[in-house]
């Protein structure tokens, strides 16, 4: 069977820069270039406005007393997990296998893709339905399976929208945050080849109708995992739409993909972690569905998958425990740090990070996983205002980590900027040098603007997209201060 949800996809034209594309491999480009393009895009202002509004609404009641207590407990549970990550993973594996599931450990994204590809080939899979999973983005699973003859349909409403638009998700839990209702209306009308009302309810109903046959007829369901309980072997997804329930119950094969830090010690920890995740992610008391899977269907059961496979991806994460960045693995992927981050909002969401995970969590995680050179400069995409820490439901010290990662970057990259800072440090180390620099600054202010952007030197990749601020008033405060010193206020 072929997908009915994707029928008409050939009528759609992608309208996004290459760095936001899902179908093209991630090729990292200099951050100043990408962010400048991102800020200039017409969609960015509207995305920023939506995120700013949400951030303002949420700031009024960030951690009410009962939630503040859950936050402490959640933070403790996640750190307890990290103290014996491998032990909990061993117990999880035993329990899942006891219940008839198969567990596959994948060291690299390539291993993970290949394992899923083999499961699809052995199971003669033609159509796979997916619920939301950031790990599947990390291993670029969709494009891989498509290349191997498996049609893959994203079933989360936001993921379905970005799949049709051939884009990566713009936010961890709100993948189509950068799309206006008009964009989505236009996309759905062209896909369906029919006129549609533009109310959000009607647009959602269109997606529901389109996806229903695929839920019923798909061979394989691919889901993420929000929490994997080590004591019972239960895999939990937290959703509002119900698509993860479909994906995990209707097809004959279920593949769940998780990264190794998703394990939690006890099933009963869900009583703390689910309300905490729901509050941080969407300000719900609890999300609508917590779908819990413990092995495949059992004898006599009318539905549920015949095969359950759990893929546990490492991709460099096992390097992190024991380092100063250990707590980044406490993350429960709520996306609250993204909403709280002024830089994330200003660049119009996650695409501008040119990485799978955007925002503060992405700026910390990306340089630590996979090929560590990739995204090593992302920690600079932050104002270090600290809002991400205030928003974090498990109290990850993201601002401290951003500073430490910048220091790591500087140690590894002894580039022109480092020479420049060393020279500056020596100059301002003496009163004479400092005064000379102020005079130099005032003289530089007489030069025409835009000069830095036109430098043709080895610093060019850094200097594009930047300029020197007006310098004519350099030293003005100190002159004013000197002239007023000693006078009564």
């Amino acid at each position, binding site marked *: 069977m072929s997908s009915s949800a994707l029928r008409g996809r050939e009528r759609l034209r992608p309208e996004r820069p290459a760095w936001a594309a899902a179908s093209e491999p991630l090729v990292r480009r200099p951050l100043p270039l990408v962010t400048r393009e991102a800020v200039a895009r017409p969609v960015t202002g509207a995305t920023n406005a939506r995120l700013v509004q949400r951030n303002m609404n949420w700031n009024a009641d960030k951690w009410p007393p009962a939630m503040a207590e859950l936050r402490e407990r959640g933070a403790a549970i996640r750190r307890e997990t990290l103290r014996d990550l491998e032990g909990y993973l061993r117990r999880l594996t035993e329990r899942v296998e006891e219940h008839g599931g198969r567990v596959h450990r994948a060291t690299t994204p390539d291993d993970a893709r290949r394992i899923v590809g083999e499961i699809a080939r052995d199971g003669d899979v033609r159509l796979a339905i997916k619920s939301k999973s950031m790990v599947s983005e990390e291993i670029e699973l969709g494009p891989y399976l498509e290349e191997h003859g498996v049609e893959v349909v994203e079933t989360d409403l936001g993921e379905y929208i970005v799949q049709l638009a051939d884009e990566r998700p713009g936010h961890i839990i709100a993948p*189509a945050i950068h799309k206006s209702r008009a964009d989505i209306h236009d996309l759905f009308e062209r896909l369906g080849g029919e006129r549609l009302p533009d109310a959000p309810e009607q647009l959602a*109903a269109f997606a529901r109708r389109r996806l229903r046959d695929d839920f019923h007829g798909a061979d394989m369901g691919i889901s993420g995992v929000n929490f994997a309980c080590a004591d019972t072997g239960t895999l939990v997804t937290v959703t509002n739409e119900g698509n993860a329930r*479909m994906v995990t119950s209707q097809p004959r094969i279920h593949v769940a993909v998780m990264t190794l830090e998703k394990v939690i010690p006890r*099933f009963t920890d869900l009583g703390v972690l689910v309300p905490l995740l729901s509050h941080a992610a969407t300000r719900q*008391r*609890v999300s609508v*569905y917590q779908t819990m899977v*413990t092995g495949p269907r059992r004898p006599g059961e009318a539905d549920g998958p015949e095969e359950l496979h759990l893929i546990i991806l490492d991709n460099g994460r096992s390097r992190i425990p024991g380092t100063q960045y250990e707590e980044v693995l406490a993350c429960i992927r709520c996306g609250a740090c993204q909403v709280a981050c002024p830089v994330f909002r200003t660049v119009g969401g996650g695409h501008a990070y040119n990485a799978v995970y955007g925002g503060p969590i992405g700026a910390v995680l990306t340089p630590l996983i996979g090929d560590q050179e990739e995204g090593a400069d992302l920690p600079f995409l932050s104002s270090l205002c600290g809002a991400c820490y205030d928003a974090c439901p498990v109290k990850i010290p993201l601002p401290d980590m951003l500073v430490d990662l910048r220091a790591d970057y500087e140690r590894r990259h002894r580039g022109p900027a480092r020479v420049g800072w060393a020279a500056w440090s020596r100059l301002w180390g003496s009163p004479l040098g400092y005064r000379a620099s102020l005079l130099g600054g005032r003289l530089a202010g007489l030069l025409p603007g835009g000069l830095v952007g036109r430098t043709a030197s080895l610093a060019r990749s850094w200097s594009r997209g930047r300029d020197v601020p007006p310098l004519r008033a350099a030293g003005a405060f100190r002159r004013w201060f000197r002239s007023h010193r000693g006078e009564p206020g």
Partner: protein
Amino acid sequence: MTTKRVTPRATRSDPRRYIAALEQVGGRAVALPSRAEAVEEVRRLCGTRPVVVDKHPDLDGVADGLHVVEDPWGAEVGVTGAVAAAEETGTLALAFDADRPRSTSLVPPVHVALVPQARLVPTYADAVEALAALRPVPSAMNLVTGPSSSGDIELTTVRAVHGPGEIHVVLYDE
């Protein structure tokens, strides 16, 4: 007699709290004084529409007189019981097995649950505990709080995306 039985129970469990919490997230619930009245209410909610009903002792006799079908994909209403119901959040705790398929509460656009008030627990964490106590661990379980929803279009909440757009919980005093 009836009042005598209801009063001490009301101190332990509070159906009004449950009803308010579920209504807040877009579901509907009622509390009725007897099982007979509750079963009548379930039948009223189903009407003549095609329904799937779990074959479980909790639902004995409910299917009588309803237009019962085998295939959930051809049903317009799914009728289930529940392991527990959390007053604080309006959550239903569901466990699935040979008698209680995953699809009943998922595939039809309307979900109706018949739940004795003795299954009410105060908090969401208590509902999690109720599922945690089941042995052997069921192959599938779900915690359901309200109708299916999404905020993926301009962060506006819409209902009825992939799961049921309507959820009705009928509570009764035993």
